[in-house]
């Protein structure tokens, strides 16, 4: 295979995987505190539309990203009020949030359909981008791609090296015990949920401002759900989440390439389009099927409301 083709496929894979990396890492932090937010799809949609609108009005993609993050956090805060303060069921509330976010974003985004944004130029990292073959693919990318890599190390460091991360894991593991040794369980869960919302919003912003520079209703296209699945099938381990996200991106690009190349394959195109979804899940299930790993990494209290004994 020609080096050029490989470079462009690698480039596209990274771009396609990036929103998943950002969103899934946010969800991972939120789930590690015991909050299961199935509203990722809705938070991403709201983030995408808010980012698009603000970028369109101000001309600044960075203000757009901030707006997307803000929109994700507002959604997450609504969710927090429901499930943390009012102790509503997390699954039902999350589903409602998804439906609400997708619908509201379509409504808010109506005026912006068929408007295009100027493409944001990538940032070329000196020297690194000159490495043959992989340099142009990895180091001549959007700023948010670099952000996603930084985020990955930040999350790993936070969860496994910092005290705050230890407390967060403790809250997700046994909220009752965490309360009894003096940690504010609800406040910590709010912070984790807001972080998850912020990342989902940024992931949405990446889609509408950088990835396609367009707003189309339903453009999130299930990425919120796949991010949720990634976290579970990666058994709540950040590095596996990344592997899964790029795998998804890679298969997505490969099947697009195959479909676009006019190759004769005796298979309906819908099967090819579904390939990234199930390939990612199958691979993650296989690499994470060890029961002990699951037991050690799954937050025990995931999805359960916590009420302090007063």
């Amino acid at each position, binding site marked *: 295979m020609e080096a050029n083709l490989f470079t462009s496929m690698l480039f596209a894979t990274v771009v396609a995987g990036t929103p998943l990396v950002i969103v899934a890492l946010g969800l991972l932090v939120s789930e590690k505190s015991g909050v299961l937010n199935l509203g990722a799809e809705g938070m991403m949609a709201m983030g995408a539309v808010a980012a698009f609108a603000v970028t369109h009005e101000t001309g600044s993609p960075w203000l757009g990203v901030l707006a997307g993050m803000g929109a994700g956090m507002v959604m997450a805060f609504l969710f927090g009020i429901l499930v943390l303060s009012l102790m509503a069921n997390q699954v039902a509330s999350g589903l409602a949030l998804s439906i609400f976010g997708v619908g509201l974003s379509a409504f808010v985004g109506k005026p912006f359909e068929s408007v295009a944004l100027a493409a944001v130029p990538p940032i070329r990292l000196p020297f690194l981008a000159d490495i043959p073959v992989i340099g142009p693919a990895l180091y001549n990318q959007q700023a948010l791609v670099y952000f996603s890599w930084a985020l990955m190390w930040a999350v790993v460091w936070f969860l496994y090296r910092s005290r705050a991360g230890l407390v967060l894991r403790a809250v997700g593991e046994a909220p009752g015990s965490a309360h009894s*040794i003096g940690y504010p369980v609800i406040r910590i869960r709010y912070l984790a949920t807001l972080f998850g919302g912020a990342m989902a919003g940024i992931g949405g912003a990446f889609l509408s401002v950088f990835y396609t520079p367009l707003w189309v209703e339903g453009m999130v296209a299930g990425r919120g759900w796949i991010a949720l699945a990634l976290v579970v099938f990666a058994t709540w381990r950040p590095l596996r989440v990344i592997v899964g996200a790029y795998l998804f991106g890679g298969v997505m690009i490969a099947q697009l390439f195959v479909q676009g190349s006019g190759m004769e394959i005796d298979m309906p195109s819908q099967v090819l389009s579904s390939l990234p979804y199930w390939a990612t899940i199958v691979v993650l299930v296989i690499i994470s099927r060890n029961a002990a790993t699951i037991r050690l990494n799954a937050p025990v209290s995931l999805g359960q409301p916590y009420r302090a004994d007063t």
Partner: protein
Amino acid sequence: MTNPTPQAPSAPPDGPPRLVLRGIRKVYPSVVANDGIDLTVRPGEIHAVLGENGAGKSTLMKIIYGVTRQTEGEIEWEGKAVEVDSPAHARSLGIGMVFQHFSLFETLNVTQNVALALPGKPDLKALAKQIEEVSQRYGLPVDPRRMVHALSVGERQRVEIIRCLLQSPRLLIMDEPTSVLTPQAVRKLFETLRQLAAEGCSILYISHKLDEIQELCHTATVLRGGKVTGSCIPSQETPASMARLMIGKDLPVCEHGASTSGGETRLRLAGLSHASDDPFGTDLRDIHLDVHAGEIVGIAGVSGNGQQELLYAISGEAPLAEKFPVQICGIEAGRMTPDQRRTAGMGFVPEERLGRGAVPRMSLAENALLTAHTGAGLLKSGLIDFAAMEKFSAECIAAYNVKCGGPGAEAKSLSGGNLQKYIMGREIMQSPKVLVVAQPTWGVDVGAAAFIRQALIELRDRGTAILVISEELDELFEISDRIAVIANGRLSPSKPAAETNVEEIGVWMSGMWPGAEAAQEVSHAA
């Protein structure tokens, strides 16, 4: 037993009180847990709080520690009225607590668990060293690198105690701290507590072991039904007189007739070896044991020497690769699931009541169904017979004197002793041919413990073969016909209880029984 010549504690120290409680009242939706409780603790005083299950001891301690708040009443800490609104606040005041139901995080290791309870950002490596030092100094052996989920109950308790000691508290609350320690470890713990008290730390000591309270505590407050029924100076009382204050009548004694030995072999372990699933667990090595109809065999040992693994191998929670090592009534059951083993005639009472013995959020009736569905005929052509289920559960509650809100009460709403009575009752009422029980009276008060032991003896007299795995030597000597010791995954030969004594079994517990490999290394022995 803990100390043959109890040295009476010196007179309670004088001085301005460190903690004063006045008229503490705590009302839960369905029950008044504390009703007008007064209590005074001085610096350097070891103060016992005595009471039956449900007497309100744990609630009172939770109020002091800020886990929950009193409905009425005042708390005065070092001369100032305080509202303890959270455990963090309590700790900042200088109050530490060792919980009866542990507040540990299973997926974290020991060091991380301890670090979570300390202020600031301790360096984990230095902390691990500190933990090792404290654990050696106070005779609480535990490896700081181990994951908590792999620890036995006894080891977890050590972690809790170490965690508290590292916070250098001015008031230490200990809820049943010695339930699973060896006699030597209890003695060492007492030295620690006396030393802490001599340094001016006050200690609130909750226990049901009257001899321990006599040996250790300066003063005692006795609770019954949420009220103070008396306070005394334990060194001037007898265990019997304190028991009367506590339960309002004389201490029950187990009646233990001679065993009707010579029955058929009901449970046979024939060269049971099993590598533990947990990298830090204990591997079982070539265990041989026969349990006959109509006898109780006790297995003693320091926690963490393979008890948990042995129980899982017998119950089927960890099925074996081969069939022959576990034989139930002649059936080779090594590869059977727990349910199949129940059908073969075995009943189990696991060590963990909430989570293994019972599902915490399910009602008592539903919990009965879980193990007694066929054993007690609670199914009708494959469907649940709700009437039979309620009836079975109600009978169990009545026969075993379980204090609860009826068959519909959630399992987790019961105190440890009451839930244990219910679980024992559920198993015994299915008339198993073999009953395997782990830690039958852990954290259970005198009255309930005597009741449970008596129930086991009665079951034996009806011809059941019973295997009891316990870390309480007193208990094993009280009920067992034969005693064996587990150490580092190996089982000693058994000896009739009447022909041995605590000293000999104590030596065996460190792995040195006749015929044992001399240089055998024993893990976690105190």
